[in-house]
């Protein structure tokens, strides 16, 4: 009974490589406004493909994707992408730009005034827990955790309603990852963004997700709340719980789907 359309909706979406190899088939999925939907699956399960279909870095072979009820193919691709924040594991900060220019890039090309950008950058740095003194540093002068925080700040710069995150904490050491996950939660409590978050780490999925979409071999296995996931009778979900359930987080391999 939703009066407003879902933030993001996949309608029978398939994606195949030009050589015919199917990476995603018949995906139906709704992302609710303000929730953190986790795409969980192993490498090659289609979770990154799903994410890239949302901001049209990939075009579906069939089916369609709606953002706020409007088909993405009908919207201007540049506008569509700027209306979403995008964070990837490799961060992708521009190495020739300072922290300030990295974070302020989208506002700058959107034509914000210099003072407004400066203000926004300071605000965002505080939001992600970074010292304002690092604005003039270059990415190579930052630690991995700092870089990832700058990546998040950059994605939030133009205040998008939707945030796409592709294993954003995958390459970090366990302690930094734990800290950033905690910060993500408190950030999300304040900002209520619609987040689609790709991971292969069940602990991360359970901790951060409102709901978990489990994927395998290009198909959606099911959608679970974290509680449902833990007690699911689905064999794949149960296998995940068992594999992760011994209390230790396996080292993340940094693979991608």
């Amino acid at each position, binding site marked *: 009974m939703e009066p407003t359309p879902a933030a993001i909706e996949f309608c029978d979406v398939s994606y195949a490589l030009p050589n015919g190899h199917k990476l995603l088939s018949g995906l139906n999925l709704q992302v609710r406004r303000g929730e953190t939907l986790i795409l969980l699956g192993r490498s090659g399960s289609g979770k990154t493909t799903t994410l890239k279909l949302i901001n049209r870095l990939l075009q579906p072979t069939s089916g369609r994707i709606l953002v706020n009820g409007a088909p993405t193919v009908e919207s201007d691709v540049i506008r569509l992408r700027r209306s979403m924040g995008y964070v990837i594991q490799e961060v992708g900060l521009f190495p020739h730009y300072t922290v300030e220019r990295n974070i302020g890039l989208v506002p700058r090309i959107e034509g914000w005034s210099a003072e407004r950008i400066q203000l926004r950058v300071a605000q965002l740095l505080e939001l992600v827990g970074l010292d304002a003194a690092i604005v003039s540093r270059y990415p190579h002068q930052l630690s991995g955790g700092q870089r990832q925080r700058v*990546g998040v700040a950059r994605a939030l710069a133009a205040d998008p309603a939707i945030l796409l995150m592709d294993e954003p904490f995958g390459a970090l050491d366990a302690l930094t990852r734990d800290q950033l996950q905690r910060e993500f939660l408190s950030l999300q409590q304040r900002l209520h963004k619609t987040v689609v978050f790709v991971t292969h780490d069940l602990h991360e999925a359970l901790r951060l997700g409102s709901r978990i979409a489990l994927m395998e071999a290009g198909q959606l296995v099911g959608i679970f709340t974290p509680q449902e996931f833990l007690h699911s009778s689905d064999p794949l979900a149960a296998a995940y719980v068992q594999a992760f359930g011994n209390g230790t987080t396996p080292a993340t391999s940094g693979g991608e789907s």
Partner: protein
Amino acid sequence: MNLMQFLIQNHGQVVELTLEHLWLVGVSTLLAVLIGVPLGILSARRPLWNKPVLGSANLVQTIPSLALFGFLLPVPWLGERADRIAILALTLYALLPVIRNTYTGIRGVDPAVVEAGRGMGLTDQQLLFQVELPLALNVIFSGVRVAVVVSVGLATIAAAIGAGGLGEFIFRGLAMVNNQLILAGAIPAAVLALAADFGLGWLEKRLRPR
């Protein structure tokens, strides 16, 4: 008469020929950059263009320089002035390193950075001018540096068709079997090449993205 004395006595002519030499190299390098960089970008963006573009630039390199100067002599307008021919020939030779390094430089930009930029909603143009070109700049520049150093040497041959430059001394020396005259052309040319290599190398280091 030794070489030093010759250079001092004829310093007016040495300077004049050096300036001519620099003119030939400078103009041809500028043209090669203006043509080569867009071609390099094109072949990096459109894989279909890659082979024909790099292939033709490669082909030019296989033409002996003296022959190329000769081929261009009967071409209308071009053949009227020897320096036009020399500049065109030098430009053609300089294209390969410029195109190849532009291609390599743009292809070498971290794919994660390009994807992040695209995902953030940069247009193709913004991606090119704000991300790809700045990050490829030092690689492109090292291609220009190679082109300049090669051109300084090649430009000596331009004197064979009367285009001037330090090759004048060399050809005159060859005709008169005068080693000192040959050296009077060859040594300044070598110094020029080394200076260009060193100076541009220094610039290239400063352009390296952090």
